[in-house]
């Protein structure tokens, strides 16, 4: 079965959870066998893993004809794309896009990030999708998140193949209710045009059905999974510590509920002194949180590390005794699963999608700081609690693998194709 996927991020150059999830799912589907996946991203770097999907960059897809020879193409973009693919794509330019800002190869430049002119980039991406859809043979089209919905719709119109859209988040999650009408419009349009919608949790499924008015029988939940961690990360050594460490790791934004963490920390510190609280990450609420901690007179026990990347994340987890994610609204939330992989007992909000599939974590309402504090206290005070969560959590998370999620997606494909 041939799938044409549109995504925005792909490891190792990722900005958020979307890239990790798209990658995991693609790999999981490839493991199920008999899958031929073409994955389109705005701007490949050349070091993306290619063993289970062919990667085409939007920025290397010509939209206006340039008379270039093989060697020139090889020299310019050989690292990221087979020149033959370039020429195949060039044969399928369907309109005159010379009015657009194109380069020497007739391609549009993409940042591959989330720039200020994001809407323009989304639009360009869907123009490129038209070329790709005419070139690449596929049975089904799969769009990851709202940025790629227009591209998916375009590809569907060109090929007539069924469109699956994958909702990794909605604007209701990102904005805590204050929805951007343009984004909502793109999302709604994608959902209307999709033949099937995959959501990453029942929570998101509910949002799609209730807030976007989509028929429930068109929406299926496929929970995310995690990639096993490399031995190198599992074996990370951290300096010995003398105090318990409770860690919040993620963007410090309204959506992640950092203020509830500060409040729970304050409560715990009334009773126990030898605990350190770490808020790792950055975001628009960071300064506010620093001030809040100071006002509560717990700044001495509260640490802000700033943004952590790559290995630093796992070092932080390794040094933690408790991981906490009090998100107000989290479509899925992959990071508690990573914490569990590192053997860190986790506390998550019931408003997180991953709470639907995890048993060996503590689930609390994000606003219930009493319960959060109780859970922290229990894990750092009662060895049995720590041990049970650590051991059972590890066992549980190791069962949550991408190939199972991949198989579910393939089932959905089959149903659509045979319809």
């Amino acid at each position, binding site marked *: 079965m041939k799938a044409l996927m549109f995504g925005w991020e792909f490891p190792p150059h990722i900005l958020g959870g979307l890239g990790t999830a798209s990658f995991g799912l693609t790999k999981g589907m490839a493991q199920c066998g008999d899958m031929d996946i073409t994955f389109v991203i705005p701007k490949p770097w050349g070091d993306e893993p290619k063993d289970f999907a062919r990667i085409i960059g939007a920025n290397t897809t010509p939209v206006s004809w340039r008379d270039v020879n093989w060697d020139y193409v090889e020299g310019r973009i050989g690292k990221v794309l087979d020149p033959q693919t370039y020429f195949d794509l060039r044969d399928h330019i369907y309109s005159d896009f010379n009015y657009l800002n194109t380069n020497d190869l007739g391609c549009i430049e993409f940042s591959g990030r989330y720039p200020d002119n994001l809407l323009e980039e989304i639009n360009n991406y869907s123009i490129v999708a038209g070329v790709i859809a005419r070139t690449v043979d596929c049975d089904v089209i799969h769009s990851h998140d709202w940025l790629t919905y227009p591209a998916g719709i375009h590809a569907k119109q060109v090929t007539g193949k069924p469109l699956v859209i994958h909702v990794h988040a909605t604007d209701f999650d990102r904005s805590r209710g204050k929805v951007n009408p343009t984004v909502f419009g793109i999302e709604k349009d994608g959902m209307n045009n999709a033949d099937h919608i995959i959501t990453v949790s029942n929570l998101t499924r509910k949002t799609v059905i209730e807030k976007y008015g989509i028929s429930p029988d068109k929406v299926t939940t496929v929970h995310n999974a995690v990639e096993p961690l490399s031995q190198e990360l599992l074996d990370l050594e951290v300096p010995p510590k003398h105090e318990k460490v409770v860690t919040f790791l993620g963007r410090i934004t309204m959506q992640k509920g950092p203020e509830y963490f500060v409040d729970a920390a304050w*409560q*715990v510190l*009334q*009773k126990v002194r030898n605990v350190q609280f770490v808020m790792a990450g950055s975001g628009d609420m960071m300064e506010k949180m620093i001030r809040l901690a100071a006002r509560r007179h717990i700044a001495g026990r509260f640490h802000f590390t700033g943004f952590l990347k790559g290995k630093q994340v796992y070092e932080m987890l390794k040094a933690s005794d408790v991981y906490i994610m009090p998100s107000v609204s989290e479509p899925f939330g992959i990071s508690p699963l990573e914490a569990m992989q590192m053997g860190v007992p986790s506390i998550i909000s019931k408003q997180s999608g991953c709470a639907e599939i995890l*048993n*060996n974590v*503590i*689930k609390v309402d994000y606003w219930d700081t*009493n319960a959060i*504090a*109780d*859970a922290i*206290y*229990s894990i750092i*005070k*009662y*060895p*049995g*609690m720590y*041990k*049970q*969560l650590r*051991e*059972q959590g590890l066992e549980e998370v190791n069962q949550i693998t991408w190939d199972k999620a991949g198989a579910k997606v393939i089932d959905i494909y089959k149903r659509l194709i045979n319809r």
Partner: protein
Amino acid sequence: MKSICFYFQIHQPFRLKTYRFFDIGNDHYYYDDFANDDIITRIAQRSYMPANQMLLDMIKENGKKFKVAFSISGTALEQLEQYVPEFIDSMKELADTGCVEFLSETYAHSLSSLVDPEEFIAQVKAHDEKIYQLFGQKPKVFRNTELIYDDDIASMVASMGFKGAITDGAKHILGWKSPNYLYKAASAPKMRLLLKNSKLSDDIAFRFSNPEWAAYPLTADKYIDWIAALPDEEMLVNLFMNYETFGELQPRESGIFEFMKALPRFAAEHNIEFMTPSEVVSKMKPVDVLSVMHPISWADEARDTSAWMGNILQDEAVNKLYCLSERIRLIQDKRIRQDWNYLQASDHFYYMSTKHSSDGSVHSHYSPYDSPYAAFTNYMNVLSDFLIRVREQFPEEIENEELNALLLTIRNQEKEIEELNREVEMMRNNIVKDTTGDFAPRVEEKPEEEPEPTKKISVKKTVAKKSPAKKVSEKKSAAKKAPAKKTPAKKSAKK
């Protein structure tokens, strides 16, 4: 002639209120009075009371040929006394018919049989006393919490003088054997074993009103036919179930009460009689010896004890609780002893079970908590406070043995003082009789008390000083002096 032996179990734990870590050391009351009152009152109204009436009617109708046994935990009795006193009266009425036997068990519905033999024996005695006090019976047959049983427990039970015990007819123990016989315990051959017939018991307790069950609807004549159709040699059918079966698990509308009422009539037709466990033990002969190496229970598919002691959480909670038991045996404080009882109820540990199979769903159904982790956290917070209170009773540095010795001397002194007082009084009385008339002694009594405390203290001090002096160990003597002084000081302060 075949016999049916009914035994019904009544147990309710004292559920804990939400107890936060802030409360540790500050709040010493642990129970959710509202929930406890609410639940027992509801179950009593829907089940216990109408079921008692049913049994009373059945006994009256059948001329005392219908007999049953009850096992009621001490904690349930306390709640019933407090919230549904009319149930106790109704139970007394049943007891007076002579057709109802009360079984022995641990007062707190505890797991002590598995972890703490001394505590176990104490609790069984406490429970038997309670039963005697309420219903005037001395239990002869023992039934452990959740039918937990193994050879070690059998020895303990036999040593307490019980003639029989009740447990589950677990398949992995019985193998090809049938539960429909009387057995004897391998470790205590004089003790008889009654085994639960799971199939026939659960037909009533769990399947009775299930329309998807092949045998639905179950009628009394059908049921008795099944029993009558058992091989002739299988003489005993033990039907053990929760008393909530009637009216709660199987709602009144299902016809469960009418089903029960009809049983004796059809039983009589087939010449099947009803017996109490102690009658079974005295009248029937055991056919074989049963050895149980690892503890069994009546819970879950595995019939083991993993629902209470099967994960790290439960192990920690159980260990932390029972490492206090030696110390608590030295404590007289009534509230501490009461909490000690309530905290031992097996239910608290059941709520912490993480078995997620089909069994696990049953666990969560009965749990007042969201998750086993929440149950553990709440219980451990309570236990932490309890620990503080236990430690406050006596300084922690003193070893249990030493403390025991000190307490013994104090108690001996008390006796001594009492004797001396009596002597003094006698002598005074003699003097008074010699000198004055009738009410003079009363007047005299009061000033008499004056010298007492001073005497007490002086006596105690001398003895207290003596005790460390006797043991010549120089190093410890300093440490010993301090607590030795403290304890009498406390005593006198109380008085």
